[in-house]
């Protein structure tokens, strides 16, 4: 059984003045297996942010369902949603979203503290993570004292420390320079190799070329799908580029 199943997902936004509805997602279907590394690509306005918000349970779909590990999002009561999100999903954002009042260590601890976890558990879990992400030395610094790449690595540690079923990454390289981006993508691959499922939304071809599978979204639906198979990063990069060109020029087409 797939880890994540997305079935006939539909999301309409009602215009603020009533009446006119905008269809952000029309009919999205896909599934992700455990341990997969999937990238979702699309231009701005294609609906990828909407999709991510739905997958993150920040927002509710108009129709369709999302099933994570056999549990439908619809069956989770509103008040348990935050706790469910905290325990099952890890988030990495473009702008890091670290709290500037907390040191990096405390930022990483945040989800565990909120779950009422014991200090011993927190300490045990942070140890291998910070070693992997190479932020051991800066743990007691505050977000405003470190670089963007270091902030993003702390954010990844925060996402991983809950041992989530899946990592949702929203343009994780968006605010980083190319060197830091490369480092980050390398880390994602490492983490993925260790068995972590990752779903990344991006419009960077380079970032997407590191994934096992790339989904293309256009006009509120999954338009195309690419598997890496045994391709190298460069070959994958080219394939994605070609697809994007087709997407930009081509007409509407169903999968």
């Amino acid at each position: 059984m797939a880890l994540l199943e997305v079935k006939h997902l539909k999301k309409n936004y009602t215009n603020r003045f009533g009446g006119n509805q905008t269809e952000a997602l029309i009919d999205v279907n896909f599934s992700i297996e455990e341990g997969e590394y999937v990238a979702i690509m699309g231009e701005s306005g294609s609906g990828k942010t909407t999709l991510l918000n739905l997958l993150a349970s920040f927002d509710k779909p108009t129709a369709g369902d999302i099933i994570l590990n056999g549990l439908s999002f619809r069956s989770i009561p509103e008040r348990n949603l935050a706790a469910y999100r905290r325990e099952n999903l890890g988030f990495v954002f473009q702008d890091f979203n670290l709290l500037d009042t907390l040191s990096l260590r405390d930022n990483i601890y945040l989800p565990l503290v909120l779950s009422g976890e014991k200090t011993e558990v927190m300490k045990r879990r942070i140890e291998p993570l910070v070693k992997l992400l190479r932020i051991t030395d800066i743990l007691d610094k505050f977000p405003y004292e470190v670089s963007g790449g270091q902030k993003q690595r702390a954010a990844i540690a925060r996402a991983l420390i809950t041992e989530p079923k899946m990592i949702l990454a929203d343009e994780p390289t968006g605010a980083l320079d190319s060197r830091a981006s490369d480092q980050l993508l390398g880390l994602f691959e490492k983490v993925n190799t260790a068995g972590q499922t990752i779903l990344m939304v991006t419009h960077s071809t380079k970032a997407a070329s590191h994934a096992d599978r790339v989904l293309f979204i256009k006009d509120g639906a999954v338009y195309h799908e690419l598997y890496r198979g045994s391709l190298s990063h460069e070959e994958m990069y080219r394939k994605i580029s070609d697809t994007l060109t087709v997407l930009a020029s081509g007409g509407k087409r169903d999968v």
Partner: protein
Amino acid sequence: MFKIMYLRLAMTNIRQNKTIYFPYMLANALVIAMYYILKSIRSMMQKAGTVKGSNTDMMLGFCAVVAVFMTFLILVYVNSFVLKQRKKEIGLYGILGLEKRHLIVMMFWEVAVTAGKGLFFGIFSGALLSQLVFLLFLKIIHIPSTLEFTVPLDSVLSTCGTFAVIYFILFCYNSISVWKMNPADMMKGAREGEREPKAKIALAVLGVAALAFGYGLALLANGPYETINVFLPAVLLVIAATYLLFLSGSIAFLKWMKKRERIYYKPGNFITISGMIYRMKQNAAGLATICILSTAVIVAISSSMSMYLGEEDILRIRFPREYKTSYIMDDVTQTPDTLLRSLDKRAHETGVEIVNARGYAQCWLGAVYDDGKLRLSDEVLGKEEDLFLFLALTQDDYNRMMGADLSLEEDETAVFTKGKIQLGDKLKLEDRTWEIKKTVENPETWNEVMYLTDNLVVAVMKDLDIVMEIRDMYNTQYADSTTGYRTVQYEYYFDLKGASDAKNMFFEGLRNHLVEDVPRLLTVDSIDTARTDYYEQYGSIFFIGIFLSILFVTAVCLIIYYKQITEGYDDRERFHIMQKVGMSREEVKKAIRKQILQVFFLPLILAAIHMAVAFPALCRLLRVMNLVNLDLFAVCTVVTVLVFGCVYFVIYSLTSRTYYRLVTR
């Protein structure tokens, strides 16, 4: 052309920054209205000539000075806040090409528009309200009056003049700050790099020490005189301590909590402690100010209210009858007959009858009780609990007053005692000894030093000779000391029967009448004149207490409001992040609410503690002013604290709404 453009720019700016300008405008109008009301009341009082003494006028004048000072501080605070919030916007103007001198012209118009609106609405609403407040004031000081609507021009002019100066100072301040800014700094605006504040342990320790010292002074002071001497230093110490504790003590404490992992890594505490450290840094001065102002309001209102309400109690003690006369008896030949005859003559002339009379000769002295013996003492500054008030009366007077039938010999006495004293069967005063024949009831005679101590020895003696002997015993020792010599006074209290016109006629000119017959006349007083004086004096104090409190509360309101706004802007981002990381909206809201509640109620709690510690000292001070009814003061204090707490809570809730709007937007 240019001028109009800047004016228009200024107007737009004010409209655009409604959230911060509206309360500023409101505060402007309010303080101006209050100042105008005070000025016009003073002017109307002077014109009406209703006040006999210049006491009230002087107090109103003093109040106006304090009000100007307060107002100035309020406006400076709010103005600098507004400027800080607008830094970024002003920086943008700079980048868009406005030179500094242009910015200053713009600033000028902004201040001018604010001042103009403030003065207009302030004086307008002040004029509407002043008549009502004037009536209220007259009611409080018990002066009957008729309603007539006037707007004293001199008050309008002096209000405009005073505030023109204040606004000019604000304009200078703004110009200088604009001049000193550079666009890059301005663009960074209010959100400058926030470092985690350092805990300054030394300052925190100093704060605790100052608080302990201040509290100690207030609590350990002995007697009213010492209390008066230490009160101001104690207040200053506590104010300093409050600032130090808020500035560094709070941060030191929070950091200490942060180091305790078991406390820190709990869902409730985690967000609160880390957030509070930052909040305290930004808010410490404001919170300390709120605390001091709150304490000031509580002290001012509770003590002036209890003085005002305690009026009848105080007068009852001083006036067991409606009228009082007294004279000094130098020797036994000066019998009260002269006084009584003179009074009777006056009563006969004016057609009233003297009833309910109560007269006695008394001599009061300070004494120290020591090893079964009383020693005379001029140590009125000494320890309250060691000092005794020694009152000597004659048995004739006592028998008449109390309906007793004492018949004492030369070496005998009858006593009443209060306080820690065991006389046994002998009364020993210096080297004189009397046998105590009987213990009697308290004759409840009044004297002007009753506030000094609760310890009392009343000794009833055979005759006036012995009372005078005791007086001389004291005077040979202490006549030259700072407390001066003592006298035997004859005090005569009585009521009158007759028409009220006749009573008034009797009392008017009574002093002039008596002084012809009685050689050493001391007091001629009536409860009515005393009451009038009392209400005028304490009514004015009460009014001024309320007035200044409203000003203080305005200041507190504004500080809270602007704190909430700053925090609203800061917290918005944090609020979103926490939600994304896995806190529900309710959890986040709860965490933030807890934080704000703690921050804003901390000053109130500390104010209540200050008040509790100051209470005994205030009691001693009020006793000097004859307020012996301390239950009343306690009730007044509790009521004031509760009412103030409610007002504070209302202010807090109202401003919190603005805050939540900012955060959840």
